[in-house]
């Protein structure tokens, strides 16, 4: 049986995706981030050449959704695994997809040193201000005063410290070719995020160093608000704490036209 193909398709599953439906909660922007990567791989004809590294976090099953080779890393170690793969397969495209607990807490050592070495890999970094998968505990990125299951009275910076701004921090390292922050809270920002994901992969294809796109993302389930309210929360509370911007674009990356 063949499915009839309408002649006015405006939105379809990108080639970079398998047909497996994702397990993400309704309204979660992990799915949007996935789509941006899948579209980019398709547009750049990278699908057969790409190997993804999934994190431990809500995206642990990312390998079910992308139609490329995939491995699944221990919590936080994706940049080290990606290093091992890229060093023995320099012609392949290697990317990690990591949450904020994964990358900015348990895996802080691995990400900083992969960036410092200028590993020619791409990192998609999902900042949703909590540990989504384990039920909404405090993450290094949780906003001051924000309630989570492990900061029930709101994050107290006196005892629980301050949020880490990953894009700004990694941008200080010389091995980094491209490092920016974008947001997924509305269509305009999603389009800008898409362009950043594309540039990050273009950076890798050209061998111009480490590339990372930090994406402000929602977690309606653990934030305990609706998907629409979550998008508003990103706009009103996360944007001021995590300003969008290009924190590092080396001159050679800046010349890339897409």
């Amino acid at each position: 049986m063949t499915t009839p193909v309408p002649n006015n398709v405006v939105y379809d599953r990108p080639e970079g995706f398998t047909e497996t439906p994702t397990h993400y909660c309704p309204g979660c922007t992990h799915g949007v981030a996935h789509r941006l990567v899948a579209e980019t791989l398709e547009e750049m004809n990278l699908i057969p050449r790409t190997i993804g590294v999934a994190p431990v976090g809500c995206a642990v099953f990312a390998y079910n959704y992308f139609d490329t080779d995939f491995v699944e890393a221990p919590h936080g170690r994706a940049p080290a695994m990606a290093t091992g793969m890229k060093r023995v397969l320099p012609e392949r495209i290697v990317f990690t997809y990591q949450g904020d607990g994964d990358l900015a807490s348990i895996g802080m050592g691995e990400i900083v040193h992969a960036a410092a070495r200028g590993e020619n890999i791409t990192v998609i970094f999902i900042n949703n201000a909590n540990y989504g998968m384990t039920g909404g505990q405090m993450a290094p990125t949780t906003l001051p005063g924000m309630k989570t299951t492990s900061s029930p009275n709101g994050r107290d910076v006196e005892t629980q410290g301050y949020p880490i701004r990953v894009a700004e921090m990694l941008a200080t390292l010389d091995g980094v070719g491209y490092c920016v922050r974008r947001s997924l809270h509305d269509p305009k920002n999603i389009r800008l995020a898409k362009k950043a994901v594309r540039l990050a992969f273009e950076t890798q294809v050209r061998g111009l160093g480490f590339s990372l796109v930090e994406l402000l993302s929602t977690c309606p389930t653990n934030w305990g608000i609706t998907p629409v309210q979550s998008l508003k929360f990103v706009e009103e509370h996360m944007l001021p704490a995590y300003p969008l911007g290009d924190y590092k674009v080396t001159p050679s990356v800046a010349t890339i036209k897409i």
Partner: protein
Amino acid sequence: MPKELWKGNEAIAEAAVRAGLQAYFGYPITPQTEILEYLSRRMPELVRAFVQAESELGAINMVYGAACAGARVMSSSSSPGMSLMMEGISYIAGTEVPAVLVNVMRGGPGLGNIAPSQSDYNQAVHGGGHGDYPRIVLAPATVQEAIDLMGLSFDLAEKYRMICMLILDGNVGQIMEPAEMPEMQPVANRNFDWATNGAVDRPRRILSSIYINPPDEEATNFRLAKRWLEVQANEVRYREYFLDDAEFVIVGFGTAGRVALSAVRAARAQGIRVGLLRPITVSPFPFQVIDELAVRARVFLVAEMNMGQMYNDVRIAVRGRVPVEFYGRTGGIVPFPDEILAEIHRIAAGRLAAEADPRGAWLARMEAAR
């Protein structure tokens, strides 16, 4: 190839290079650092991958990544660094990808010291990472044996899609001995049918250690166990010395085995019928040969550079049929042949421990002699 003078650690590194090593990831720690230093020069000159990682955690996960890509890959460390690698070791085992690791053991626990020890036997053979997983563990006693086992370890790891670990005490790592290197093997593209190296002209592949559905995880554990039975049936290796007519059997691996051999030779010259079994694979352990020896020997003596770790495996094989005595030095101390000779005299004179576990009596003797 002619014999040359080689330092243990450098010999291992060169042997790995000649076995077609494609990538090395490591972190400095004494008494293993010469492996890292040697390869930091050797690998780049051959246009092969070398990374000094940010930690052993980083190193083992780089090994994991390269192993998934299907490369011949290794790391090396010493006891505290090996502890840090245990997370990755469990993941590598659960993903069923081959990797070779070297532990040049030092005195512990904790930071301990940098002197030779065998105190990570249990970690290597029985424990370490979480979950049920088998692994092959080889214990060379000389530089030549370390060279030979290094080449073998890659073949075993790849054949069984399993971790293969070399454990050597710092003595084997640091000693200089004449040894013969194998010929240089070319780097081979092994094209494993499981490797995640880019889905060009083939269906995509996934490598992970996740089996979210418990029956699938159980099936995985069964699959690993069945493969282990195969390893046990085919890969047990050991050396026997003077065992044909031995009334007393010493069991020792690595440097402890080598020192025991000197004591055995001296005792033989005095007419004592003593022999030595030196396990080379401590995992799979030579249970069968000990089982057979237990039928004809009068007493076993286990000699180790730890508090009696392999001792428990020997006891399992002997199954209570004859006494199993123990002598150990720990903390980074290598026993002298005379110490083991004195133990042989004690056993031959029938002065055995009164308790089922002789380690209490041994400890009392050691304390009294201090």
